[in-house]
């Protein structure tokens, strides 16, 4: 409740600062805003930014460090009693302290823990009060100095434009830093895993059965685990299913894109395109039902009828349904790219007596190639990362096979099964998930780089 109250106050203050700055700017020039260098609104925004930005920055800094500061404070208060505990007990104490911080009944806690809760509450309460006071002072001081700075020639517009730019930079910074953070966390956990299992054995091993991993440490564990964590069957499964999906999605998606962009009347296009895009909106778990309950049995029955043994969970069923799922990615993006090839090229080709299909094959598709390749890349990334359909339709057994009628498993599915349920978080089994994730990340990254190179080399650039 108090938090919301605080936010509302902040918003109101911001509005008030804006209004004050505006009026002040108009007042300084005797009520004639035309003689101001910047329009009054910019002066208002100037005062608001000076008042609010330092305060908000301080607030976020506090959010970042408060966890660390509270633990440090409580640790210091408890002194030797705390220092004598084992690391695991220390961690448990801090955890309990946080979860009991807003409960009245502390009877479940030990005396030391109850003491920690008391210290914690006192510190948090005092910190919140100090924080609010400091923020209030910052707002008032910032606003005051900005107000004093307002005069006719103040470059308020330039100041506001620069602030807008910093906000935009910060926004893209967040995206980049998040990516970096994810990659780093993957790398750290994977390094832990590779201390337990040999890197090369993992990458080139042909046997994958993490359930029989040896829990423990030492030479024996490393030897045993290097045998059961061979990632090739898992990656082979991913490759097989992705290949099937692309074989389905690329021709169908590309041909429907060509139809929509060059053959369909505007009316058909206006109806057909949204319908195709609905495919992209179906939750993947629904595709999973479809694959497991309709497509897979269909293949099995057909196989029985003509005397071929088809596993009831097959790579073919999963790949096919996954292909259907990514059709809209291919078709919608390719359609946009094909449409953006200039009409003058179509006219030029038609003017030489080329038919529609010749024009598309010889002029439009080469010119649209970079966009089509990137549409396919996006579709492949989707297919590689897809989990649900595979869990439901392709099974969990890590077979090393290129036969699409057998059950296979994929990297993402294995990551899920390794991490689901009660697991110790530092065993080789759970850490293997991070290693798989890291390799998967590298593979998709490599694919993207290769695709970019290919595009650069073979693109036929118009204009």
């Amino acid at each position, binding site marked *: 409740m108090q938090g919301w109250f605080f936010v509302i106050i902040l918003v109101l203050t911001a509005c008030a600062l804006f209004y004050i700055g505006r009026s002040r700017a108009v007042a300084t020039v005797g009520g004639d805003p035309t003689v101001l260098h910047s329009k009054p609104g910019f002066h208002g925004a100037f005062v608001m930014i000076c008042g609010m930005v330092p305060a908000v920055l301080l607030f976020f800094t506090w959010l970042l460090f408060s966890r660390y500061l509270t633990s440090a404070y409580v640790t210091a208060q408890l002194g030797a009693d705390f220092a004598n505990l084992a690391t695991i007990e220390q961690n448990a104490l801090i955890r309990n302290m946080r979860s009991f911080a807003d409960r009245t009944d502390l009877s479940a806690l030990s005396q030391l823990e109850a003491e920690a809760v008391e210290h914690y509450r006192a510190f948090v309460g005092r910190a919140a009060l100090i924080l609010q006071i400091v923020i209030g002072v910052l707002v008032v001081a910032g606003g005051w100095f900005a107000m004093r700075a307002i005069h006719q020639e103040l470059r308020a517009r330039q100041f506001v434009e620069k602030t807008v730019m910093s906000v935009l930079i910060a926004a893209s910074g967040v995206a980049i830093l998040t990516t970096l953070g994810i990659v780093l966390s993957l790398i750290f956990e994977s390094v832990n895993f590779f201390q337990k299992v040999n890197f090369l054995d993992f990458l080139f091993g042909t046997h994958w059965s993490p359930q029989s991993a040896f829990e423990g440490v030492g030479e024996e564990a490393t030897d045993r685990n290097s045998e059961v964590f061979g990632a090739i069957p898992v990656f082979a499964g991913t490759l097989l299913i992705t290949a099937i999906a692309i074989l389905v999605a690329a021709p169908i998606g590309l041909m429907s894109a060509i139809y929509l962009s060059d053959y369909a*009347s505007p009316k058909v296009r206006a109806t057909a395109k949204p319908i195709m895009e609905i495919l992209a909106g179906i939750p993947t778990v629904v595709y999973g039902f479809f694959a497991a309950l309709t497509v897979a049995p269909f293949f099995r029955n057909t196989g029985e009828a003509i005397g071929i043994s088809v596993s009831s969970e097959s790579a073919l069923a999963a790949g096919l349904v996954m292909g259907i799922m990514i059709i809209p990615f291919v078709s919608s993006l390719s359609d946009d790219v094909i449409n953006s090839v*200039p009409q*003058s*090229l*179509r*006219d*030029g*080709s*038609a*003017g*030489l*007596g*080329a*038919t529609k299909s*010749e024009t598309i094959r*010889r*002029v439009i598709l*080469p*010119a649209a190639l970079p966009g089509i390749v990137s549409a396919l890349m996006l579709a492949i990334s989707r297919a590689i990362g897809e989990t649900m359909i595979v869990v439901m339709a392709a099974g969990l057994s890590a077979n090393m096979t290129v036969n699409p009628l057998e059950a296979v498993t994929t990297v993402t599915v294995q990551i899920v099964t390794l991490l689901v349920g009660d697991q110790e978080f530092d065993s080789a089994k759970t850490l293997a998930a991070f290693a798989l994730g890291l390799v998967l990340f590298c593979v998709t990254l490599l694919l993207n780089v290769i695709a970019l190179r290919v595009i650069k080399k073979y693109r*036929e*650039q*118009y*204009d």
Partner: protein
Amino acid sequence: MSVEANLAATAAKAPAANASKVKMSGNGVNVFYGEKQALFDVDLNIYENQVISLIGPSGCGKSTFLRCLNRMNDTIDVCKVTGKIVLDEDDIYDKNIDVVELRARVGMVFQKPNPFPKSIYENVAYGPRIHGMTRTKDELDDLVTSSLRRAGLWEEVKDRLDQPGTGLSGGQQQRLCIARAIATQPEVLLMDEPCSALDPIATAIIEELIDELRANFTIVIVTHSMQQAARVSQKTAFFHLGKLIEEGPTDQIFTNPINKKTQDYITGRIG
């Protein structure tokens, strides 16, 4: 009115100096874009191995008429053409006419240079390839070379035939498009304001080229520049608001027009 009668009527109007053969003729051509009529009852003869300029203010229908001559208007869904257009003996809007073959016989050069994003060689070889005009690679090489020569581009590009056509300058691109059009060995060449995107020097080169090409092709050129029409063409036709107002030998149209509107246009009073 039959084609022959129309031909005779025009021939009677034209002095004996223009007694060459009629290559194409439009007879009562009307064009509609949906509800809107863009051309009204146009009769026009185009003579073999001559250059005819279509002039007139913007929106007068000159480009529309040009695009009727190789049925480029077919690509616009709402466009409807009535009347008769004849190439040699064939009605080009007849059901039995193959548009692909027609466009091979009636080539076109567009307002903005539009080379394909392929190599210079591939640009010129495009037409011959799709029409299967050559038997061997050597024949195709010869055809590409001679087309580039006739378009006056050979000397400038002979060392870089494998470079993209889009990398050439605007004037070179337009000559590449002309080479591309004449590589299919058309009988008639349509040019839709071929110099409007070019600088004066490139324009002069193209105009010179048009004059040379006249020996082998019949040329129809749409232009906004009356000087250009006067420089390159033997015949001129003046369009206004979708109607053909006046046609005749170029020097007559520019020095002694019969119609008041033509006079107003060439002296700059309308347009």
